[in-house]
Each structure stands twice: as structure tokens, then as C-alpha cells.
């Protein structure tokens, strides 16, 4: 019953209008809390204060990947169930996922300068994120190029699924390519070595970023629904004038 209700764009819009203010408030509060904790987190004994970049870099990386996950789920919804909101969700997720991936790349690069002595290293992690960013740009270009939203979203859905299947393969090959050429000397930020005094703010920031993602995603979905409404009304306008014999 709930699913059928949500399939109606007007109901969905009403829901978004009700939820969005609360979600925005929660995001702002959590960011304030997370940033305060992050500022007061102790420095890393090896990297010093630059470890503060991690509070942005790591959540952005997670959300960049999660964005593709959302798009792939939406792609399944578009192709398999033909759910009307699914391609709206997919289209709205692409620029947001791309933006977070971009944040991840830029902060990674700014972190790399003091750590590696250069802004960019073809490190396996960063390179995989770069490939993900390129895939995002491809999907966005596909949405942009298609004039008919229905056809465009099906094509983009197929591309998202192909990308989802391909991403692990890309990750694997980039790792292999990277170790072939370079000793794996880059710094590690593996799980258990992180001190709780850093891990807690990181997790809070991750949740804050996730809330930000969904706030933006819902707002962008609302815009996309309105855009489609504009499109159908314009079609009606041209048609009504033709019927009137003007």
C-alpha cells in the first residue's frame, strides 16, 4: 500500500515537502556537532594536523560510491519494475554523487601534497575514484544529451548497471596496474589502527554527510518531478492550441 502511495508523484511531493525541513535541520545540527568534534580531535602522530582532511575525504568517498549504489538501485527500479519515481531518483542522484566524488578527489589531492610532496599520485584508491568520477560525468552527459526524458533515463539506467558491474573490475585492475608499477608505499588508513578519538568524529561526519546526501537527493527529486510536470504541461499547451484550430 505504501509503495503504491509513493508511486503517485503528488503524494511523494507532499511527503517531501513535509520531511525536507526536518531533514535539513537534522543535517545542520549533525554537521555542527561533527565539525566541532573534528576540530578538537587530536593530531595523528605521523601526519599531524592534516589528518583533519580525513573527516571530509573519507565520508565523501563513501558517499561518492553510495551515490552509484543509489543510481544502480534506481536503475533496477526503472528497468525491472518501471517504477515512475525510479528514474527520477536515478537522475537526481547523478550530479550529487559526482559532486561528492569530486570533493573526495580534491581533498585527497590536497591531503596528498603534504603527505606525498605532490598534488596527484596515481595511487590505486584515488585513481579508482577518478574513474568513478568519469563514469558519473558520462551518465550526466547521457541525461543531458537525451531530449526525451523517458528514453534518456532507460539508457542511463543501463549505463549505471553496466558501471556497477564494471566498478569492481576497474578497481581490481587499477590495483593490479598500480602495484605493477609502484611499491605499495602509500599511507594506510586501515580499520583497526584508527584511534577512537578520531574514529568517533569520523563516523559522526559520515552520518552527517549521508543525511546531506539524502536531503539534497530528495530536493533534487522534487525539482525533477516539477520539471517533468512542466514538460507535460507544455505539451498540453501546444496540443490545446492545435485543437482550438488557432
Amino acid at each position, binding site marked *: 500500500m505504501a509503495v503504491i502511495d509513493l508511486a503517485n508523484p503528488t503524494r511523494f511531493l507532499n511527503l517531501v515537502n513535509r520531511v525536507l525541513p526536518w531533514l535539513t535541520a537534522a543535517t545542520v545540527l549533525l554537521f555542527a556537532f561533527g565539525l566541532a568534534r573534528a576540530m578538537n580531535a587530536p593530531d595523528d602522530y605521523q601526519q599531524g594536523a592534516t589528518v583533519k582532511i580525513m573527516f571530509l575525504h573519507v565520508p565523501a568517498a563513501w558517499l561518492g560510491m553510495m551515490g552509484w549504489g543509489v543510481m544502480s538501485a534506481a536503475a533496477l527500479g526503472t528497468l525491472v519494475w518501471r517504477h515512475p519515481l525510479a528514474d527520477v531518483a536515478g537522475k537526481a542522484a547523478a550530479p550529487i554523487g559526482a559532486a561528492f566524488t569530486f570533493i573526495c578527489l580534491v581533498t585527497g589531492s590536497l591531503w596528498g601534497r603534504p603527505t606525498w610532496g605532490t598534488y596527484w599520485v596515481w595511487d590505486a584508491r584515488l585513481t579508482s575514484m577518478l574513474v568513478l568520477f568519469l563514469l558519473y560525468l558520462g551518465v550526466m552527459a547521457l541525461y543531458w544529451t537525451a531530449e526525451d526524458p523517458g528514453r534518456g533515463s532507460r539508457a542511463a539506467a543501463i549505463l549505471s548497471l553496466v558501471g556497477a558491474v564494471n566498478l569492481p573490475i576497474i578497481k581490481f585492475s587499477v590495483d593490479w596496474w598500480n602495484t605493477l608499477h609502484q611499491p605499495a608505499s602509500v599511507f594506510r588508513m586501515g580499520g583497526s589502527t584508527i584511534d577512537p578519538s578520531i574514529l568517533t568524529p569520523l563516523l559522526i561526519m559520515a552520518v552527517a554527510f549521508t543525511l546531506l546526501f539524502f536531503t539534497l537527493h530528495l530536493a533534487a527529486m522534487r525539482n525533477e518531478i516539477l520539471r517533468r510536470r512542466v514538460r507535460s504541461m*507544455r505539451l498540453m499547451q501546444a496540443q490545446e492550441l492545435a485543437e482550438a484550430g488557432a
Partner: protein
Amino acid sequence: MRLAADNLGCSRGGRTVFTGLSFSLSGGEAMIVTGRNGAGKSSLLRMIAGLVHIAAGQIELTGGDAEASTAEQAHYLGHHDALKPSLSVGENLGFWAQYLGGDAATVEPALEAVGLAPLSGLPAAYLSAGQRRRLSIARLIAVKRPLWLLDEPTSALDAPSQVRLAELMRVHLAGGGIIVAATHGPIGLEAPRQLRIGPGPA
């Protein structure tokens, strides 16, 4: 104002389409070009418009602007509507008005004349074939040029729009303009001159 063609010849891809075609039209006159498919109706219009190389003979427009070529004093309405789907109705017409030497103030009345004024802000992609055709015709109204070259002007137009087009053509002729139209059927003008190209029944 006089449009004179003398002993025109046309060949496409080595094949002779027509030869020895002559006619002369003065201001206020309209001419209907008929003939079977492939007889060269469109080629004749495109020749006058300067879009196809003139293989033999010559075309002259006298009594107009001495500085401008025949093509610059002519409007050509071809099979395609010369519209960009991503631009709005107003932007499409506004561009052609500016490019062809008219000014922006003529856009609104021209849209009014073809009945598209309420759709001015709509992207051209949303238009039906008949509406696209009417927007294309609005170009002839927005920029004043004495010679109209119309290739199947009534195609895609419904009956009321055909009446409206005939009215626009009558106004143009009354103002001393010249019309050359290639068509299969009637276009709603009284007693236009006839020119049949090519052998065989039309």
C-alpha cells in the same frame, strides 16, 4: 520589380533535369510551378534562391535593391523548417529576424500573424508539424523581402492554417511582392500564373 529567368537549364548528377526554361514575373504576380516528382520544381526554386548552381541561362531580379543579390531579396521556404528544437518559439524567430536583417520588434506581430503568439516561450521541440510549419512561415512576415520562394507551402498545414497562409500571400502580392510556389495542389490564390516543367502529365 521584375523577376526574369532566361533559358534556364538544370542538371543533377550528370542527368539533365530541364532545359530552356524562361519566364518573367512582375510585382504583384504569383506563379505556380507544377510537374511530376523529380521534374525539377524544387531545383528551380533553389536555383532562384542561389542555393543551387545555375548550369545554364540566367536569373535576374530588377527594380529592387540594386546592392543586394537575388538571394538576399528572397525568402525560401523549403521542405525543412529551419528550426532548432532546444530554442523557444520566440528565440527561433528572433534569431532569424536578426540574422536576416529585420529587428526584434517584428517578432511579436509575426507570431501573431501565424497564431503562435501564446506559445512564444515554448521550446520548439513541443510543436506539432503544422505549428513548426507556421513558425517557419512567420519568418517571411518578420523580415520583409520582395520575393517568396515556397516549396510545397501547404504541406502539414490544416485547413484553417491554409486559409491564413493564402491571406498572408494575398497581402504580400498586394504590396508588390512576387511569389513562386512549387505545389501539387491548390494553394488558395485566385488565377496565379502556371508553369509546368517536364514532359508528361502532372
